[in-house]
C-alpha cells in the first residue's frame, strides 16, 4: 500500500503558514481564518482517510500491524552513516495524526471567534499552521534525526505562540523560559541520539526498534560505568522527552506558558506538544523495554509517577484557572509516562503501552475541551482568577455543561472516556508495580478534587455581581466545545487494544471491575469533598489550608522550584563559576592583547624621533652609513 500521499498531510499546513506568513499585512483577517481552517480540514480528511485505510483495510497482515516506511536519502556522511527523510506510518503515528488534526482543526475554528478583533489575527493562524505542520512531521518521522528536526520546530512554534502578546513582558519572559528549558533538555536528547546512532550504527526507527535486530540484541556490547552505553543514550533521550513533556524537574516552563492565548494552551500545552515526550518513549519502546532489562523504562515510570503526584498537589492550591489546568496536564502526562514505564511487551502484558496511548487520545480531547471552555469563561469574565468567578452556570449554559462533561471525564467518572483510559493505566500499574499503583490511585482522587474545586468555584460558589453581564460565547467558540464534549465521552468506547499495542498485535483488554470500583470510589470521594468545600462559599477550605500550614504554603508557591533554580543560576553558576572566568577573560586575555598594543605604541614613541623632518639629520644618517660601509670594505680588503 502506497502511503506516500501522507506527505501532504503536514505539507498543507506548511503551505498555509507560508501563504499567511508572507502576506500577513495584505490578507483580510476573516479570510485568513477561513484559509487556516480550510487547510486544516483538508489535512483532517486525509488523516481520517489514512486511519481508515490503515486500521480497517491494509494495516494488518496476519494479525500483525505493519509499519509502512517511505523514505528518501537526504544526507550521506560515509557509507555507513546516512540520514534519510521519510514518512513512517504505523499504529501510533496514525493515531497521533488523528489527535493532532482533530484538535488543531477545532482550535482553528475556536480561534476564529476567540481572537476576533486582535491585530495579529493572520499571524496567529500562520503560527498555528506552522505548529500543526511541525507536530505532524514529528509523529510521522522515520528516524531519530528527523524527529529531532521537527522537535525543535515544535519548540520554535511554541515560543512564537506563547510570546504572541509580545508587548506584555511576562509573556515574552514565559516564551523565553519555555524555549530555553526545552532547548536545555534537547541537549540531552541530542547527545542521546548521537550515542544511539554511533553504537548501533543507525538512526532509523524500524532498525532500532526491531526486537530481533542488531541494535537491541547487541545492547550489552559496550558499557560505561556499569550500565550499557545504550541505556545511557535512552536515558538522555528521555531527558529530552521529559523537558518537552514538562516532567519534574524540567516542568517549570509549563505554568508560565499559560501567558499565551487560550487556544494555544489548548492545542500545544494540553493536547499535542506536551505529549511529544510520551510519543518519543512510545516510539522507542522496544529499545526501552529490552535494553538492560528495562532500566531506562524504570526511570520513566518513576519520573512519571512523581510528576503526577507533584503536579496534583500543586494544582490543589492554585487560584488561576489556567495554572490549575497546566498542572493538571503535567499530572496526566505523568500518568501516561508511568503507564509506559510499567508496561511489558507481549500481548496482554503490553497493557501499559496501550493504556498510555489510550489516555493520550482521551486526554487530548477532554483537556483541550477544558482549556477552550476556560478560554470561553475568561473571555466572558475578563479575568483568570477564581475569586472573580462564581455562579456562571446561569449565564453560560453550553460552557457549563461541556466543562462538566470534561471534568467528569478527567475524574474517571464511569461512562466517560477518562474512566476507561485511566482504569487501564491503573490495571497495568497494579499488575507490575504496586507502589506506583497506590500513587496512581491517590493522584486520581486528587485529580477529581481539584477539578471539581474548579468546577464548583466557577459555576456555583456564589452569585457574583458582575459589572459586565457575562454572555455565552458565539457559535464559532461553542461548536468546538460541543464536538470535544462528544469526543470526551465517545472515545472511551473505542476498543483501543485492538488498534494500538506494543508488539503490533491486537489483544483483548477487559474491564477489571474491582480495580475500577476502587478508582471510581476514590474519584467520588474527591468530588464529594470538593462539593463540601466549594459548592457554597464558606471558609472550610481556608481552615484546612491553614491547618496544613507550611505544606500549603510550599504547594501554593509550586514548591519553590523556580526560586531554587534562580538560586542555583545566580548564586552558584553566575557568581562562583562565571564571574571568575569573566574576570580572567577581561583582565588576563584582554590584558595580554592590550599589553602587545601598548608595547607597540611605546616603542613607536621612542623611535619616532628618527623622522625629525630636518634635512641635515637625514644627510647625517646618509653619510654615517656611507662611512661605515667604507670601513667594512676596507677592512675586508686589507684582511
Amino acid at each position, binding site marked *: 500500500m502506497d502511503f506516500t500521499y501522507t506527505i501532504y498531510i503536514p505539507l498543507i499546513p506548511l503551505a498555509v503558514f507560508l501563504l499567511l506568513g508572507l502576506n500577513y499585512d495584505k490578507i483580510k483577517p476573516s479570510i485568513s481564518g477561513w484559509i487556516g481552517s480550510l487547510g486544516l480540514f483538508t489535512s483532517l480528511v486525509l488523516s481520517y482517510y489514512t486511519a481508515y485505510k490503515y486500521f480497517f483495510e491494509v494495516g494488518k497482515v496476519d494479525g500483525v500491524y505493519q509499519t509502512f516506511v517511505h523514505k528518501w536519502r537526504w544526507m550521506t556522511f560515509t557509507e555507513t552513516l546516512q540520514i534519510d527523510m521519510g514518512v513512517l506510518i504505523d499504529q501510533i503515528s496514525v493515531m497521533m495524526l488523528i489527535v493532532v488534526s482533530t484538535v488543531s482543526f477545532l482550535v482553528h475554528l475556536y480561534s476564529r471567534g476567540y481572537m476576533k478583533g486582535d491585530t495579529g489575527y493572520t499571524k496567529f493562524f500562520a503560527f498555528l499552521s506552522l505548529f500543526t505542520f511541525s507536530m505532524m512531521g514529528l509523529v510521522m518521522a522515520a528516524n531519530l534525526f528527523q524527529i529531532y528536526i521537527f522537535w525543535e520546530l515544535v519548540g520554535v512554534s511554541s515560543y512564537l505562540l506563547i510570546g504572541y502578546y509580545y508587548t506584555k513582558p511576562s509573556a515574552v519572559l514565559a516564551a523565553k523560559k519555555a524555549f530555553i528549558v526545552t532547548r536545555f533538555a534537547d541537549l540531552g536528547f541530542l547527545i542521546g541520539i548521537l550515542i544511539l546512532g554511533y553504537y548501533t550504527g543507525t538512526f532509523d526507527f524500524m532498525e532500532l526498534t526491531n526486537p530481533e535486530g542488531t541494535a537491541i540484541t547487541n545492547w550489552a556490547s559496550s558499557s560505561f560505568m556499569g550500565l550499557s552505553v545504550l541505556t545511557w543514550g535512552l536515558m538522555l533521550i528521555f531527558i529530552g522527552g521529559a523537558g518537552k513533556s514538562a516532567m519534574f524537574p524540567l516542568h517549570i516552563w509549563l505554568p508560565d506558558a499559560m501567558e499565551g492565548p487560550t487556544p494555544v494552551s489548548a492545542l500545544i500545552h494540553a493536547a499535542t506538544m506536551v505529549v511529544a515526550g510520551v510519543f518519543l518513549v512510545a516510539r522507542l519502546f522496544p529499545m526501552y523495554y529490552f535494553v538492560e532489562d528495562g532500566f531506562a523504562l524504570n526511570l520513566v515510570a518513576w519520573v512519571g509517577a512523581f510528576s503526577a503526584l507533584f503536579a496534583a498537589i500543586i494544582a490543589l492550591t492554585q487560584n488561576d484557572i489556567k495554572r490549575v489546568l497546566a498542572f493538571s496536564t503535567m499530572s496526566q502526562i505523568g500518568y501516561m509516562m508511568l503507564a509506559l514505564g510499567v508496561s511489558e511487551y507481549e500481548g496482554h502484558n503490553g497493557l501499559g503501552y496501550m493504556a498510555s496511548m489510550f489516555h493520550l487520545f482521551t486526554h487530548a480531547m477532554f483537556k483541550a475541551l477544558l482549556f477552550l471552555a476556560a478560554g470561553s469563561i475568561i473571555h466572558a469574565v475578563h479575568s483568570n482568577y477564581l475569586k472573580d468567578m462564581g455562579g456562571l452556570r446561569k449565564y453560560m449554559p453550553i460552557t457549563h455543561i461541556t466543562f462538566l462533561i470534561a471534568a467528569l471525564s478527567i475524574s474517571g467518572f464511569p461512562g466517560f472516556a477518562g474512566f476507561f483510559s485511566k482504569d487501564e493505566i491503573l490495571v497495568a500499574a497494579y499488575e507490575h508495580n504496586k507502589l506506583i499503583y497506590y500513587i496512581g490511585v491517590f493522584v486520581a482522587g486528587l485529580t477529581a478534587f481539584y477539578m471539581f474545586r474548579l468546577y464548583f468555584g466557577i459555576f456555583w460558589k456564589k452569585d457574583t455581581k458582575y459589572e459586565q453581564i457575562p454572555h455565552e460565547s458565539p457559535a464559532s467558540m461553542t461548536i468546538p466545545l460541543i464536538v470535544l464534549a462528544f469526543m470526551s465521552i465517545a472515545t472511551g468506547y473505542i476498543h483501543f487494544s485492538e488498534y494500538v499495542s506494543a508488539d503490533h498485535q491486537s489483544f483483548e483488554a477487559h474491564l477489571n471491575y474491582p480495580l475500577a470500583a476502587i478508582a471510581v470510589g476514590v474519584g467520588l470521594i474527591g468530588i464529594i469533598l470538593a462539593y463540601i468545600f466549594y459548592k457554597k462559599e464558606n471558609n472550610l477550605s481556608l481552615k484546612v489550608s491553614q491547618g496544613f500550614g507550611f505544606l500549603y504554603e510550599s504547594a501554593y508557591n509550586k514548591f519553590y522550584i523556580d526560586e531554587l533554580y534562580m538560586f542555583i543560576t545566580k548564586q552558584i553558576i553566575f557568581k562562583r563559576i562565571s564571574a571568575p572566568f569573566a574576570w580572567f577573560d577581561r583582565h588576563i586575555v584582554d590584558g595580554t592583547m592590550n599589553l602587545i598594543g601598548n608595547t607597540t605604541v611605546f616603542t613607536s614613541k621612542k623611535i619616532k624621533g628618527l623622522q*625629525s*623632518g*630636518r634635512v*641635515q639629520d637625514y644627510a647625517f644618517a646618509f653619510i654615517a652609513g656611507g662611512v661605515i660601509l667604507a670601513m667594512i670594505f676596507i677592512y675586508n680588503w686589507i684582511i
Partner: protein
Amino acid sequence: MINGISIYEILTLTTIIFFIGVYGFLTRKNLITMLLSIELILNASAINFVVINTYLFPENLQGVIFSIFVVAVAAAETALAVAIIINLYKLVASVEVEDTEIMKF
C-alpha cells in the same frame, strides 16, 4: 706632478676639505651656506681626481677631463638647489633650514 710633495699630503688635504664640507652641510643654518659647503665637497672630489691622475697615471688624461664633468654637475645642481630655495622661500618666507621641519612625526 709637483716636486717635493707626495701624493699622501695632497690626499690628506682633499680629505680635510671634504669633511669640512660635510661638517658645514650638517651644521649651518642658512640654506645658501649649506650650498657653499656642498661646493666644497664637490671641489675636494675634483682635486682628488686630478691628483690621482697626475701622480699615478701621468700618461692619461681621464682624471683631469672628469674634473670638468664634476664642475658641470656642480653648476647644474647649484642651479637646481637655488630654484628649490626660491620656491621654498615663497612658502616659509625664510632661508633658514629650521623653518623647513614640516614633514615630521
